[in-house]
């Protein structure tokens, strides 16, 4: 096998793993800091994608459409937390059920508003060539975006007062309140940030993954599994599982078929959960 081909396959696999990571981080934040699995995460991604799409159609440059998508998804996320999630803390399965129901509502709303087929936006045309092979540049750029996004969220949670409060509130909810942390406000913020990250993902990935009402579903299953396999050190763990599982699946897909790639993803997930029932990070001594 020639080195050029190998390098191409490797790069594109890291790129698709990064895309999975971008889609996963918001879910990891909400699970890691609130103990809530947001099954509507994929639909927040979809809302972000549609928000960015609509903004660009109104003439806004794509780079400015991304923050618009983030703000919109954060606001919707804050409302969802206040209206639904906060009534269900500590009830993991109830929140999953509620957010699943919410995802169906968002999906139907998207179908009603936008229809099932929507025009994509063109992918920025730049790329690189390795020997005889050429790769589109934008998906490769996602490697850097994933790294920056991860660094930003890690810094937000470990270096800021908000981050400390959010971690305190999930680790000892009662004591956090008793020492003066307004857990309710912190949780609203955390959920909004998680949804905003999903919105960012939907917007930044829009050139690669066109906005459709069902687009969230494609991501949420793998993102959900990556977060579950990651375990309690949600952020670092999810980064590792998303890159590992996503990259492994993508590599397999390049050499065999995409079905084989998915099979590798799910078999590896099952094996890891069998080996580490509490997630791979259960015994790690890390903060996030």
């Amino acid at each position: 096998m020639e080195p050029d081909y190998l390098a191409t396959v490797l790069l594109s696999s890291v790129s698709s793993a990064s895309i999975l990571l971008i889609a996963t981080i918001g879910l990891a934040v909400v699970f890691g800091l609130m103990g809530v699995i947001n099954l509507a995460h994929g639909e927040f991604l979809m809302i972000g994608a549609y928000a960015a799409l609509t903004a660009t159609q109104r003439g806004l440059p794509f780079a400015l459409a991304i923050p618009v998508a983030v703000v919109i998804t954060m606001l919707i996320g804050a409302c969802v937390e206040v209206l639904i999630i906060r009534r269900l803390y500590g009830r993991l399965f109830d929140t999953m059920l509620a957010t699943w129901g919410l995802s169906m509502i968002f999906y139907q709303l998207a179908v009603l508003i936008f229809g099932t087929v929507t025009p994509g936006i063109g992918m920025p045309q730049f790329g690189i060539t390795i020997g005889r092979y050429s790769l589109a540049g934008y998906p490769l750029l996602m490697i850097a975006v994933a790294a920056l996004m991860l660094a930003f969220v890690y810094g937000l949670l470990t270096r800021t007062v908000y981050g400390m409060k959010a971690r305190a509130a999930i680790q000892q909810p009662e004591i956090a309140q008793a020492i003066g942390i307004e857990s309710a406000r912190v949780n609203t913020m955390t959920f909004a940030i998680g949804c905003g990250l999903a919105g960012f993902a939907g917007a930044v990935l829009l050139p690669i993954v066109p906005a459709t009402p069902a687009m969230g579903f494609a991501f949420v299953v793998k993102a959900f599994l990556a977060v579950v396999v990651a375990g309690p050190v949600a952020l670092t763990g999810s980064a590792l599982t998303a890159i590992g599982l996503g990259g492994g699946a993508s590599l397999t897909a390049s050499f065999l078929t995409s079905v084989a790639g998915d099979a590798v993803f799910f078999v590896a997930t099952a094996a890891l959960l069998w080996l580490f029932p509490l997630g791979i990070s259960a015994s790690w001594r890390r903060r996030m």
Partner: protein
Amino acid sequence: MFSVVNATGGYGKTVIIQGVSLQVGKAEIVALLGRNGVGKSTLMRFATGLVPAMSGHVEIDGRLAPIAPAGRARLGLGYVPQGRFVFPRMTVAENIAVAAEANGHDGRAAVAAALREFPILGPKASDLAGGLSGGQQQILALARALATQPRILLLDEPTEGVQPSLVDEMAGTLLRINRERGIAVLVAEQDLDFCLSIAERAYVMEKGTIRLETTRDQLRADKRLQQDLLGV
């Protein structure tokens, strides 16, 4: 300056404490004594607002305390829970800083002050709190409560599972804090010696109510009372 008035509360529909009233004066150290399961911890949690009131209320400085525990913390109520409950996946320094910041104080300054006050935490400052020994976690829980700059400190079984040398040190620290900063202390304990070494006055609980109020000297002299109420 701090009082619990006619407190009735518990978990779900189960009443644990009934009609309990007590007061702690300014810069006073008061002990809350009683055997296991008489409702000391529930009373402490009632005072912080973590156990909702079925009836009765809490006053801080003669004013009705807010319902929310966070509001009470901001009015100067510090709490060291039984079993320590530090934030395990946060560093020692973060445990202290977050308590200060949550009450509008500078986190960095609070950490520096805490490490001066409790040198034992110094070498552990950037370790995760979950990895500390039981005694160190107890010190950290105390440092965390002090970082909120409380005027009344609620301590729930602070000596439980702590080695004797640290217990003496803790008594010394509490007395110093009380004297230097004028912080009032209400301490729920089973360790009578510890209480006698710091508290001037004590309430003795039995079956969810206050059985009697006594002074240190009375309690020290009355062996029969000790035997009867505390099983010591």
